[in-house]
């Protein structure tokens, strides 16, 4: 595999205007449209319309980018895996005497070089708007309506709980009227009760509320961006492998859309007894376990599933209801999908009649 081969495969994909424009519209286009409209509304009527960026918008668009990014990448991968076949060029390439494996492998960096920048541009726009045209960072975190100073680390929170036992009890041990109570003092809790709870549990609840109410820090944005790009890369490689296997772009895209928007949500929605390990083999479940802590899962107000405080790797944590799997298992599933589809695609390319 040579640089020239990669460059020309990149050219071949990049020049598919329809594909690239669709990919850009479904990712960067949506982000620009939503944020652009919010910017305009805010500028025209600031009293009625808040700033363009907000934690909610950031989470929503990030999750959308991950979802659409996977699908768009799968479509690009399917195109990369089938274009030579459908255009009848595969035969000409094989006749050159170049190893078929090299021809396949060249598609990987070439395709990633097409799709990853598109997603990166979309996410960069989102981060810029969130940072420079978003809501100001709050100075306090509202935990069950109890204001707690923001930016505490675990030790800082522990110190604050010791100094404010009653407020801590109202925040972390709310009674029946707790969350709805007008003030912390209206639902007093036993002094020192909050302090008796494991600090990591309390800190997880604090950070959940902190994330929900504030824009992510730059380092969190970087983690979220990398996580989205990982989703996109997996989608591309799955599309490339499946496309090379079937030789049909449409079929490949349909199968991967079905996987992403039907199979994965169904298998991730509930724990199926005796099939939990099978559920974990779905790449979407494994990737969710890598979800950065600063990114709320779609539809979850507090974030975090039964895994609760289960930070896994690189600050990730599962947001689905599937119990977290060991880190090695999660990595194995993701690597397995990447390597597995690549091996299948390469094998088919090497054995296919040209």
């Amino acid at each position, binding site marked *: 595999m*040579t640089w*020239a*081969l990669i*460059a*020309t*495969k990149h*050219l*071949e994909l990049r*020049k*598919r*205007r329809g594909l690239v424009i669709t990919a850009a519209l479904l990712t960067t286009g949506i982000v620009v449209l939503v944020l652009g409209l919010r910017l305009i509304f805010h500028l025209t009527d600031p009293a009625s319309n808040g700033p363009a960026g907000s934690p909610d918008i950031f989470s929503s668009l990030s999750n959308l980018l991950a979802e659409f990014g996977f699908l768009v990448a799968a479509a690009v991968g399917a195109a990369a895996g089938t*274009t030579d076949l459908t*255009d*009848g*060029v595969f*035969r*000409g*390439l*094989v*006749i*050159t*005497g*170049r*190893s078929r494996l090299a*021809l396949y492998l060249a598609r990987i960096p070439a395709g990633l070089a097409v799709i990853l920048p598109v997603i990166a541009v979309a996410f960069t726009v989102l981060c810029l708007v969130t940072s420079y045209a978003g809501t100001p960072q709050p100075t306090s975190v509202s935990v069950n309506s109890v204001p707690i100073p923001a930016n505490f680390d675990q030790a800082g929170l522990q110190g604050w709980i010791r100094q404010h036992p009653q407020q801590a009890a109202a925040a972390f041990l709310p009674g029946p009227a707790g969350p709805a109570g007008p003030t912390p003092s209206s639902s007093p809790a036993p002094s020192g009760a909050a302090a008796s709870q494991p600090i990591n549990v309390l800190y997880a609840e604090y950070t959940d509320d902190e994330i929900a109410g504030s824009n992510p820090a730059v380092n969190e944005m970087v983690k979220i961006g990398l996580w989205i790009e990982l989703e996109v890369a997996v989608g591309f490689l799955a599309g490339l492998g499946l496309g090379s296997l079937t030789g049909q772009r449409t079929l490949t895209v349909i199968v991967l859309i079905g996987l992403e928007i039907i199979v994965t949500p169904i298998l991730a929605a509930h724990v199926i007894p005796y099939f939990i390990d099978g559920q974990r083999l779905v790449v979407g479940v494994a990737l969710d376990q890598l979800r950065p802590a600063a990114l709320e899962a779609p539809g979850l107000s507090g974030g975090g599933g039964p895994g609760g405080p289960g930070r896994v790797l690189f600050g990730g944590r599962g947001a689905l209801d599937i119990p977290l799997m060991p880190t090695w298992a999660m990595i194995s599933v993701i690597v397995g999908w990447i390597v597995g589809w690549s091996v299948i695609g390469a094998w088919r390319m090497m054995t296919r*009649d*040209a």
Partner: protein
Amino acid sequence: MNAIALAAGAAPQHVFGGGSFLLAVLVLAALGFGAVRLTARRRAGSTKPDSPWPSNPTTPTTPTTPPASPASPASPASPAPPPATAEIAPSAPPRLRRVVPSPDAGWAVETDGLTKRFGSNVAVNDVELRVPRGSAFGYLGPNGAGKTTLIRTLLGLTRADAGTMSLLGIPVPAERSRALARVGAIVDEPRFHAHLTGRQNLRLLAAARGGEADTRIAPSLARVGLADRADDKVGSYSMGMRQRLGVASCLLGDPELLILDEPMNGLDPAGMHEMRNLIAGLVDEGRTVMLSSHLLDEVERTCDAVAIVDHGRVIRQGPIAELTRGAGTVAVQLDCAEPARAKRIVDEAGIAAGTTLTEAGLTVTLPQGSSRELIADLNRRLVGAGISVYGLQEIRTSLEDWFLSVTSRLGDPA
């Protein structure tokens, strides 16, 4: 009258198309090839057959054709002297055919027992093919005869079920990459990315080839006359331009061997003419061009040697001149007064293998191997009998006639 005398200008008086120069070239070609064959036979020992090609079945004969003369190409004693049939010059040979190069230089393509099956269908059946280097070689057969399958097998696009093969002396598929680095090929119609320009498509193929292929893009485009349209999208190209771009893609590797599958397909007469010239130019540079086709006339115009394939099996192969020589009958079309009486005279004289009255007059089929003197004799007899002869025209045995006679289209070959 012998061939040398004819070549020297002692032409008969009756009407024949073609000049003595052309005749001389053909005779010299036959002599040269015969000498090569003789040399090869002497080198290999007299027990080997004189033809470097795998032995062909006996030439089929029509009912009116007498037994083959001793000078028939099927005879092992024939190589040195020019066969008698060479004395009858074709009326309009398609072009000056080259002398097929000596196989001493090795074969450009060589297969033994090559077989490819698709289920119960045997697409390539025990093929023993020899393509001499430096020649234009036609792989000729009707549609569905297995021409493209053989080419795909040679190029490693599909696996052979049995047999061995080599390209330029390099065994494939064992050393396929090394062999294909010196081969350019078009299989079926040339296909390209329609959304890329001609130049970009060649860049893609050059990158796959590696080496100096990238530097040959511009010269290749110029060679096939596409330099002006190189930056247009291939989607806007005509079929002829795509064919030319296909040839340009073949030239990226500066190949010693070009394998072109049906290169004339979809071309208009001008395009065919261009393609013919292009192929001739490539052969003149010392490259070997193997082309498959079902267009007999084009193969005859373009190639020096052919293999005829039918139902996956090669049934004949060798230089065209040798294959068609004596393979069929020679006929003379007579334009005369009283054709019925002329027919009686010819029949009674017993000098013809057959006579047929036609709307145009009388067709006289001469015995195989007849000399041109027989045509003059025919003329003398008719004139002597008081029949006015307005014209005599030889009906040449073309590759097409021969092809149809040996393929299953007209019955079982041989």
